[in-house]
């Protein structure tokens, strides 16, 4: 299982702040997780489409599409940051 977290605009658009997900065989990268979620359709497909302005982190470190994801990881999706 991996823990998925969603923040800010994505949390509202996807209607949840966190969930547990069983990692299917063959899904081993951040982009693999993104594609799995986007395949749910609706807001998931819209918000997590390639080319959309979202950021992601694996285990609380900024990640890119190729970043490995394995069982037990914490994966977060969120909009570009606007603090300060």
């Amino acid at each position, binding site marked *: 299982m991996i823990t998925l977290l969603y*923040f*800010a605009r994505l949390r509202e658009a996807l209607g949840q702040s966190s969930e547990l997900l069983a990692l299917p065989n063959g899904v081993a990268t951040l982009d693999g997780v993104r594609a799995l979620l986007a395949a749910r359709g609706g807001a998931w497909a819209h918000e997590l489409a390639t080319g959309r302005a979202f950021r992601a982190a694996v285990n*609380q*470190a*900024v990640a890119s599409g190729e970043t490995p994801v394995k069982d037990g990881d914490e994966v*977060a999706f969120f909009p570009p*940051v*606007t*603090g*300060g």
Partner: protein
Amino acid sequence: MTVRVQESDFDISAEIAALRAGNPKIGAIASFIGVVRDLNEGDAVSTLTLEHYPGMTEKSIEDIITQARGRWQVMDALVIHRIGTLKPLDQIVLVVVSSGHRGDAFAACEFIMDYLKTRAPFWKKEQTSNGARWVDARASDDAAAQRWRQ
């Protein structure tokens, strides 16, 4: 270094006094305070609500301070960032850097703030005369962080 994410306000005098207490090697202290404006993109702002990613926020700011320490002579650094609902005139963020000399203190303070704006996971939602909206990231903030790479 000290990083705090908190709902409560901060007192810059008390924070600076604590940062420099008993250290006669400090010759310069630079500070920055970010404050809530009453206008954004032409609309009156009544409140601002800040959300963050607990854990990653603190780690990312600590990493930014560590990077600043690698580039300038920094004796100590403090970052306080508020979360929750704020209103115009409220303080949002404080950066304080102590150093032997002013050049390092000024540069490290600005670097920390520029990197915080583009890397620390905070998000602002503002309540305006036109309803509630998430604040969009600004290209000018990316450009400000980018110039430190040159």
